[in-house]
């Protein structure tokens, strides 16, 4: 074999070997869902980074006094929110301004948090890490701390050629874990793929839902993830102005990110400040603001007690028990 052949064979072998070891993970989701917003090219999924992200998500070292992790306000068993808390508490029991959002289907969102202040999933973690009411720390502090902690030094050694954590690496690892939190196995989803049928009550509820709710809470994600006013009066103590606080545009006053309606049974209380404990209160709020619907060219929600029950019955079909009990999302034991 002459040298030219040797070169061709070597190049072919190298290409074959690198193809075999390149195993990009892809998210699994129903084929009729829209494409994710997240740009995976900048952060291709791999199982080691997902595992690292999961460890970091549950790691209280990310807070100044090492007591608060992401999971402190985003628990897997309650759809990654802080159930039974209108406003969450962070370091030293300090209380924040807003209700902890449930986390799932994040690949389809690019404006994070109730007012969309973070424009990319990768950067979102900077906000709670730095907020004095939440983790009261800094990304510089986190990185320095991880780089001087033995078990993280060992992880960095395995994962990165230069064996160090950087801000970018911490943030992208967290994103990778968060991207895997997909909720797609509710009864509603099973009806869509023919596995199950709705009850008559649920079917009635769906009709009401389509008429009055689906414009903002659009299937299959049950949100457009846009920003809307929902007629809530401003809380006089919290004085939250919503998206206006980020954009400065007067039309954004009291607009909040439309939450998905999946997993409602696991994620009360409801609204940006958790003011409603029960779904019936949410529905009654919307019944009390017909002008909101009229403004949007929709039919106001004027329904009777039967309708309310039907609507709630439908909403409960969006609960995904498989998601909240998925052990791949829970605290990583023995990692």
């Amino acid at each position, binding site marked *: 074999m002459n040298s030219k052949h040797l070169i061709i064979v070597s190049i072919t072998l190298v290409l074959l070997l690198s193809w075999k070891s390149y195993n990009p993970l892809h998210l699994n989701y129903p084929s009729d869902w829209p494409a994710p917003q997240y*740009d995976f090219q*900048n*952060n291709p999924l791999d199982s080691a980074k997902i595992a690292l992200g999961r460890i970091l998500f549950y790691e209280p070292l990310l807070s100044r006094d090492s007591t608060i992790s992401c999971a402190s306000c985003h628990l897997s068993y309650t759809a990654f929110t802080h159930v039974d808390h209108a406003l969450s508490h962070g370091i030293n029991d300090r209380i924040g301004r807003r209700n902890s959002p449930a986390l799932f289907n994040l690949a389809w969102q*690019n404006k994070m948090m109730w007012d969309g*202040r*973070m*424009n*990319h*999933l*990768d*950067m979102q973690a*900077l*906000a709670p*890490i*730095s*907020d004095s009411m939440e983790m009261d720390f*800094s*990304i*510089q502090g986190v*990185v320095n701390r991880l780089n001087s902690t033995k078990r993280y030094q060992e992880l960095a050694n395995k994962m990165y050629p230069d064996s160090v954590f*950087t*801000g*970018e*690496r911490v*943030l*992208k690892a967290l*994103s990778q874990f968060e991207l895997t939190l997909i909720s797609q196995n509710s009864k509603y989803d099973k009806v869509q793929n023919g596995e199950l049928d709705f009850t008559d009550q649920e079917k009635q509820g769906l009709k009401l839902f389509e008429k009055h709710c689906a414009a903002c809470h659009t299937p299959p994600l049950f949100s457009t993830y846009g920003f809307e006013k929902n007629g809530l009066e401003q809380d006089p103590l919290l004085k939250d102005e919503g998206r206006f606080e*980020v954009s400065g545009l007067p039309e954004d006053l009291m607009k909040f990110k439309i939450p998905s309606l999946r997993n409602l049974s696991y994620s009360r209380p409801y609204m940006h400040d958790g003011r409603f404990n029960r779904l019936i209160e949410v529905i009654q709020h919307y019944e009390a603001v017909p002008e909101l619907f009229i403004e949007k060219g929709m039919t106001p929600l004027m329904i009777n007690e039967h309708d309310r029950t039907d609507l709630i019955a439908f909403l409960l079909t969006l609960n995904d028990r498989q998601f909240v009990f998925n052990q791949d999302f829970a605290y990583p034991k023995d990692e």
Partner: protein
Amino acid sequence: MLSVEVSYSAKTPDFQLENFKFYLGDFCFMNNDEVVSSNKSAYYLIELDSAQVLFEIPAPETDFNALCFRLGIDSVMNISGAFPGDLDPTNGMYWTWQSGFINTKIEGSIDHVPFEFHLGGYAFPFRSDQLIHRAISNEQKLVLTINLDEFVDELRKTEIRRIMSPRKEAVQLMRALSNCFLLDEF
């Protein structure tokens, strides 16, 4: 590769600089208004004190007679997530309370009054990054001097001494700063 040397000068009295950090990037070489080489999305975080900072940028082999570069980070980078190196958020040049790079941090005192400007903003109408365009010739070294006297003159016209969010004054100051960049060649 082309050497770039950056420094600042400020002869104006009663002006003291404590912190001066900014991004330069998107270096682009032109010849008779045609782009001959560009290094898009490469950004350099420059931290200036009394000394100069040296760094290198890729340069074309062919002739060039103009240079274009950006003071600050362009808007697409601002919505594209986390980046390594000089863009890493541990550099303290990315806001933590909302998304967006801080294009320039300039802090000090003027007429014995402290000032603190964190100049950012990537979205209309407060997009503050600035494109700078200068004529140069094929040389081996670029010397960028930022003559802050002009910036201080601009500052003395206003009462603002603190900017921590995207706003029109941030855009104005970034524009004033971009006018301060002088290019000498060796």
